[in-house]
């Protein structure tokens, strides 16, 4: 008798993209707010950024959000224990290694989370750490993870031109861009990724970390493939309703609500 394999998988991919850029005295961490499953949208307003209650490190993760939530909880409690034991907050490089070890301790049942950790190091310079699902990490000048990462990374490679940290004589991996320029770049990058990735869109949440604190910005992104069509449709509906065919209007409204919940719609 052939073995029956279970069709249930403990994992799911909720999509989304996270980006971080390190600067000379700031760090920008951004993520979209769309949470999907398969071809459906579960939420248009779900934050993927977690600030670990550390003023120098912010974690952003895409992938399976249940695992991400569990991972955030573990990190938060480990950070709290550290604060009690050492009477100070964890530095960003320390948090980076903690995250790596936390991920590796689930090596045989991994957290399905693709993380980017951003923050300021001991000298106040920006640092970004990028991870794979089981904890291998490296310090980089910028990184993108998630469903839109293959679209975003080549563009960041082109714009930020960060020299490799392995070169000898050593060159700084930090980008020379100023903070407003980096925020602008992030907005551009997400607007472009939204055009071509169905799992990225809705809103963009940007956190800017500087020595004096964390600032948050929110920007609207495209919600469906063709919002201009929705606008046209609504104008047409108003015109029709003035002619008196209210039942047709109701049908069109219902259709547009269904369309709203599908991340791809041929409109």
């Amino acid at each position, binding site marked *: 008798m052939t073995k029956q*394999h279970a069709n249930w998988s403990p994992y799911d991919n909720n999509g989304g993209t996270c980006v971080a850029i390190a600067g000379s005295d700031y760090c920008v961490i951004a993520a979209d707010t769309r949470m999907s499953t398969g071809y459906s949208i579960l939420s248009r307003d779900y934050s993927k950024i977690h600030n670990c209650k550390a003023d120098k490190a912010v974690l952003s993760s895409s992938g399976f959000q249940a695992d991400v939530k569990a991972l955030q909880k573990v990190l938060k409690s480990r950070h709290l224990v550290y604060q009690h034991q050492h009477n100070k907050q964890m530095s960003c490089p320390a948090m980076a290694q903690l995250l790596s070890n936390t991920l590796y*301790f*689930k090596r*045989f*049942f991994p957290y399905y989370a693709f993380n980017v950790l951003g923050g300021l190091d001991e000298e106040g310079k920006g640092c970004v750490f990028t991870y794979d699902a*089981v*904890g291998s990490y490296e310090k980089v000048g910028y990184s993108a993870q998630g469903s839109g990462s293959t679209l975003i990374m080549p563009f960041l490679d082109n714009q930020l031109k960060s020299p*490799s940290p392995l070169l*000898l004589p050593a060159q700084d991996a930090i980008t020379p861009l100023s903070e407003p320029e980096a925020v602008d770049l992030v907005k551009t990058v997400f607007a472009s990724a939204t055009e071509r990735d169905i799992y990225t869109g809705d809103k963009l949440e940007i956190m800017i970390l500087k020595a004096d604190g964390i600032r948050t910005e929110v920007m609207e992104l495209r919600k469906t493939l063709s919002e201009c069509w929705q606008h046209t449709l609504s104008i047409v509906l108003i015109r029709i309703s003035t002619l008196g065919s209210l039942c047709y209007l109701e049908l069109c409204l219902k259709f547009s609500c269904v369309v709203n919940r599908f991340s791809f719609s041929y409109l």
Partner: protein
Amino acid sequence: MKLDTSGFETSMPTIGFGSSNDMLDGFSTVPSFDLPRTTDFDGFQKEAVQMVKPAKGTTTLAFIFKEGVMVAADSRASMGGYISSQSVKKIIEINPYMLGTMAGGAADCQFWHRNLGIKCRLHELANKRRISVSGASKLLANMLYSYRGMGLSVGTMIAGWDETGPGLYYVDNEGGRLKGDRFSVGSGSPYAYGVLDSGYKFDMTVEEASELARRSIYHATFRDGASGGVASVYHVGPNGWKKLSGDDVGELHYHYYPVPPAIAEQVMEEAAAE
């Protein structure tokens, strides 16, 4: 069939019981891992591996010569056809006189080398002298042997200088451990072996050896698509390791094979004429 997880149980008594075991903490014993509760462990691991997609595809090499050990590696990490990073540190600094190379799963290599570094330091503190390369590689091999068959992917070389002179061992995830003079690991290793074996002499100077190592990595990155990035070269001498060079392999190509100026000018003239 219930999985035999006795390999994960700590074999040492817990702290506070035996006074002779004061030094021991979680790091001296096999760390315990969460396991998924499934009847088909191998099938689950195969699926999990699909998700993790270990960064295979690499070229690392190391060889012993008169002046010590030369270690070199590329820096590309690929996930299938996508280059996930061009700046991966594949030469891991275990401690100031020992290096380890990374090939296979990036997280596996990073974690176990870090773990090895901790164990080596504990050995120093317990025995008031440095651990030998043979001892360190044995520690790593034994740790990996306990996880044999569970899907770890580690193909590493431990290079160092101890009281007996330069030492080089190859350790892999099956728990295999080989002592040798010349090793190359990874998808680009056949190309690297070709250049390395033909140019190798025991009586090389440090400069000649570093140039040989750099050239071998460059040739491997030239022909192997999964290798590339920056070619790093380290030297391990009696006073510890030192990084000798880190060059982008694209630039190395033009350094070794410069485009003759005549041809370049001709091409530019033709382009200008159009």
